[in-house]
């Protein structure tokens, strides 16, 4: 069922059993899990079904510290959330990612990879990723030319990703609208959370919209699923009962913001051309691989978990760092610039290698262009020189944080400032990863590796190049910990000290691992959904 909250009489009161705030990957995954249950689910979404720049402006904020994307365009505020233009790269975290590592400050989750495994499988369904199988041999049997570099797996192995840019807005609109017990309210932005005296239980939330309406939502359980930055903002800005906000007695809300460093780091030069289909982003073959560092080597060298993606050097030469291309306030324009740059780089590489295409100017549909681009990536992947793009967790850093600023948005909510801060171990780890890959390439007699200039001085672990990209992955800010002193939510994603308030999303990550976050955040959300079901059934 869908209701446009702009059309409700002002000051309406909405009642339900569960209130989910935010209809993106996390919120929709949970809502789907409750379809046809006897419970009334209220799903609140800030935006409508289509992109609306007035709503988008509500999530704007400022950034300081390490250069970042404009906050306004790093998320999409509409039904479906940021899956509206995500790339769909998915891979589960590794065992080590959940462990306490004495060389990574603030590491360690209160759950293990095994706890998440059944939920990863269910997340695969929601994300329409096909078989939950990340075993290379399985995929090589299906696609024989997925050759792997013959490196010592005790040090460097190939980690797999599956790619499917599932657009939740399109995929699940009908199911949600048709579901009898799911009440989707669009143009319903949460602006305040109110609890009982002592704030041990949430009673209601206030929602507003750009039509000037204010409503109240009451429920038994509240799940914040607005994305890591907005979830922290909702908790911090709900300060009418407690100056520090909700769930923030220990000043942890907003802290430990993490991103994935995605940065051009090295070149690999091979003696012989290699058919790198497995490592090509063409999507052909069902999986995509990156060179990864074994748990054993991570321990031995006391480094973070990170991987190296391979881009044919001919293609990489023409690619501009995304952090430079993605600076428009309108995410759609930034996306266009990015695709344009990649297409031009691919065409230049093609022209250089194979000469001009006769019909390269013939008009094509966007779909045709994309298919051509992917085919081109595949073709260029037969080469002897690659640029590597690192994908690495950042060490959890309490000073990397989201705080409230003094400016307010059109609904009167304080805007946020994101101070993104990196640590020395982040840079040292990237360097070590390529030194290890270099050693293994040498040992295997395949070629040699050359690290980019910013990594060459082993005494410099603090300066970063202009083109230091992030992955648009917002993590941390409401981190998971058994101890309320060191985290915002517990192992079930329940806010410490508040019996019916939960957070869904990558904000709960205690560490960020190497893979893109959405598969894990959806798995964690479905696990939370089960937990709330159990709690409701127990009553």
């Amino acid at each position, binding site marked *: 069922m869908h209701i446009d909250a702009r059309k409700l009489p002002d000051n309406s009161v909405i009642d339900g059993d569960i209130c989910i705030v935010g209809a993106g990957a996390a919120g929709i995954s949970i809502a789907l899990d409750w379809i046809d249950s006897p419970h009334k689910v209220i799903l609140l979404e800030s935006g409508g079904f289509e992109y609306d720049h007035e709503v988008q402006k509500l999530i704007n904020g400022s950034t300081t510290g390490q250069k970042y994307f404009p906050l306004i365009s790093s998320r999409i505020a509409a039904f479906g959330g940021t899956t509206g233009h995500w790339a769909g790269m998915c891979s589960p975290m590794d065992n080590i990612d959940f462990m306490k590592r004495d060389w990574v400050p603030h590491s360690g989750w209160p759950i293990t990879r095994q706890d998440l495994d059944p939920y990863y499988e269910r997340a695969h369904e929601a994300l329409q990723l096909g078989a939950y199988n990340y075993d290379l041999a399985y995929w090589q049997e299906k696609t024989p030319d997925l050759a792997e570099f013959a490196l010592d797996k005790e040090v460097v192995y190939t980690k797999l990703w599956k790619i499917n840019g599932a657009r939740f807005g399109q995929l699940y609109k009908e199911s949600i609208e048709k579901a009898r017990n799911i009440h989707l309210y669009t143009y319903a932005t949460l602006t305040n959370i109110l609890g009982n005296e002592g704030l041990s239980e949430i009673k209601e939330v206030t929602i507003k919209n750009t039509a000037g309406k204010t409503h109240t939502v009451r429920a038994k359980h509240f799940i914040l699923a607005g994305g890591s930055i907005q979830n922290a903002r909702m908790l911090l800005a709900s300060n009418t009962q407690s100056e520090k906000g909700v769930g923030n007695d220990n000043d942890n809300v907003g802290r430990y913001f993490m991103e994935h460093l995605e940065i051009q780091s*090295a070149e690999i*030069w091979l*003696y012989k051309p290699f058919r790198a289909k497995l490592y090509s982003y063409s999507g052909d073959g069902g999986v995509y691989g990156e060179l990864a560092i074994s748990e054993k080597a991570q321990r031995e060298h006391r480094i973070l978990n990170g991987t190296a993606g391979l881009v044919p050097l001919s293609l990489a030469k023409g690619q501009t760092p995304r952090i430079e291309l993605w600076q428009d306030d309108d995410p759609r324009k930034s996306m266009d610039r990015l695709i344009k740059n990649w297409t031009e780089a691919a065409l230049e590489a093609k022209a250089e290698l194979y000469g001009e295409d006769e019909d390269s100017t013939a008009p094509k549909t966007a779909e045709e262009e994309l298919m051509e681009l992917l085919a081109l990536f595949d073709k260029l992947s037969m080469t002897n020189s690659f640029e590597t793009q690192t994908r690495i967790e950042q060490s959890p850093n309490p000073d990397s944080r989201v705080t409230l600023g003094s400016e307010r948005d059109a609904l009167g909510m304080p805007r946020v400032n994101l101070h993104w801060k990196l640590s020395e171990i982040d840079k040292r780890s990237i360097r070590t990863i*390529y*030194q290890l*890959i*270099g*050693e*293994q*390439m*040498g*040992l295997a*007699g395949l*070629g*040699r*590796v*050359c*690290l*980019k*200039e910013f*990594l*060459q001085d*082993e005494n410099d672990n603090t300066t970063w190049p202009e083109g230091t990209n992030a992955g648009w992955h917002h993590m941390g800010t409401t981190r998971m910990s058994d101890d309320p002193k060191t985290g915002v939510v517990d192992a079930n994603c329940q806010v410490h000290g508040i019996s019916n308030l939960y957070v869904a999303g990558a904000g709960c990550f205690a560490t960020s691992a190497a893979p893109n976050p959405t598969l894990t955040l959806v798995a964690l959300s479905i696990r939370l959904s089960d937990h709330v079901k159990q709690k409701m059934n127990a009553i």
Partner: protein
Amino acid sequence: MDRRSFVLLSATGAVALTIPVACSGFGTVRYDPILNQPQSLTSLLTPDQISSIGKKYREKVPKEKTVNAIARKLLDDISAEGDALIAAIDKKIKKDFETGNTAFIEGWVLSVTEARQCALSTLATQNA
């Protein structure tokens, strides 16, 4: 005196050099000048890059600043020439990578053996 010719690519083009295999005098090391060429790198790096790596290596390891010092290190247990020397050096390079005996120079992750060869090649050019 045994003499052997080889071609060393330099920034200015191909330069034919003739290097003495053995020098007269106390303590000098006899070696096949093929050793001056880091075979494992010539197809991947330009002569300029090889020379630059060689110079950096000598800066980093001042103890190895003469042809003799470097050649001695390279040949410690090898007494071969020609293809056999190349094979023996290849083995040494592999061993370096296996044991982590690597050099990180100008961004390149190299075996110490091949870094020494780069250093030797710069000295050989100077002495030519």
